[in-house]
């Protein structure tokens, strides 16, 4: 296991909590930025929505156009005109 993989494993062990930060000028539709830390995986990726899986929950971001990028290990940032943001429990 390389150093990067070890760091990732350590991150997963230490941080079971995910943080979602929303930065907006007043309304999501006008252009917002959603940062999700400790994201487990991307479940779905489509023209108008992105579904992220975090520990115990799925985050469904819909909007157009949506742009995704990562920062750090396991952290993603979604920007664009966001129409809705749903949180669904998963098992």
């Amino acid at each position, binding site marked *: 296991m390389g150093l*990067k993989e070890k760091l990732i494993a350590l991150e997963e062990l230490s941080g079971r909590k995910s943080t979602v930060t929303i930065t907006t000028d007043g309304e999501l539709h006008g252009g917002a930025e959603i940062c999700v830390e400790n994201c487990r*995986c991307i479940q779905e*990726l489509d023209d108008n929505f992105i579904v992220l899986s975090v520990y115990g929950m799925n985050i469904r971001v819909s909007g157009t*156009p949506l*742009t995704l*990028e990562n920062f750090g290990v396991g952290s993603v940032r979604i920007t664009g005109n966001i129409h809705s943001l749903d949180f669904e429990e998963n098992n």
Partner: protein
Amino acid sequence: MKKQKIRGLRFGYVKFSGIGGYSEKMITELLENGVAIRGVEIKDGKIFGAVSPLDYYRTAETARKYGVRIRAGERGGIYFTLSRYRSRVGLCVGALLFVLTISLWQTSVRSIMIDGDVPRSQIMQILNECNIKVGASVDNLQISKAEHRILAEVENCAWADVSCVGFRVDVHVEKGAPKPEMEDSSPRNIVAARSAMIVRQIPRVGASVVENGSGVNAGDLLVSGVVPDGRDKVLYVRADAEIIGEWMETREFFVPYSETVSIPNGERHEFKYLVFGSDEYPLFFGKAGADNSLYTEQTSIVKLFGQETAFKLKTGIYTEYTEQQIMRSPDDAISELAKQKQRFEENFYPTYEIINAEEKFYPREDGIRLIVDYTLQGDIAKPVAVARE
């Protein structure tokens, strides 16, 4: 994919587009592997994004793994800029030599800066003995030893720091507050510093043994530090007094009618330096200096577009002496004698009061001689420690 700025990819970027397969799994795996991805968008079933050129191979492999047919698009950044010059051997060798030169410079000391109100020669000697000198290898510098020695050997040194940054050694020394002067309390006598007649006296501590109007020789006791206590015993005290004596001195001055003098009005040699902080950079080749000359310097602040900069321009001026023959008339000689006498009094009698100065002029063939009989008054008290048996 629309034109947008790619942030955070220091070495450059490769934009890609992919179609088909499981793009979300591909992105997830790339995220898990720590690949920096920017601007991921899905449009009409196609995925767009950008990765670092160093990560593109892994991205392509991951895409293949999940059935995404990927295609590289626009690319840019320092990685591709430098790639253009990889066949330019001269540039590569030049860059390599540049890095090599900088690296070699970093392996030995090139300059030593000393900061603080301390004797520079002493610090340099200590540094030299600790192998800290220009040209010495950075690995062999005995920095801790130098700091300890500076602390131990520099007088009243409170703090010393020696550090090597790159090829420069910085020495910072702070001195402590000076010790207050403690007055000595050991017993002492006051004796005459010279032969004189006592004019007046102000004994503060001790017993005076001379009277006004009496004559004393050099070394005679004036105020005793051994005084009776009134019970058949003596006390040793620290005698203190102001004893004003009067005495005569004769001085002789001579000014010739003809004289050869050296005057600094010859050729001027100017040497300019650019000064930044405590560093000086000579703006000339060779060595500054001129034989038999007077050195003066001027410093001015360098201005750029009317604004003062941190740089200063120092001009060192060496003016050569030239020998000139001076002829004086008797009046000029007398005037020069008066100046000589005045300079002598200012230099040698600043603490004495001149009661009388009787002048006698003796003209000679080659000049005029002046003999002055001074009558002077001054403090002749000289403290001497009491020898206790």
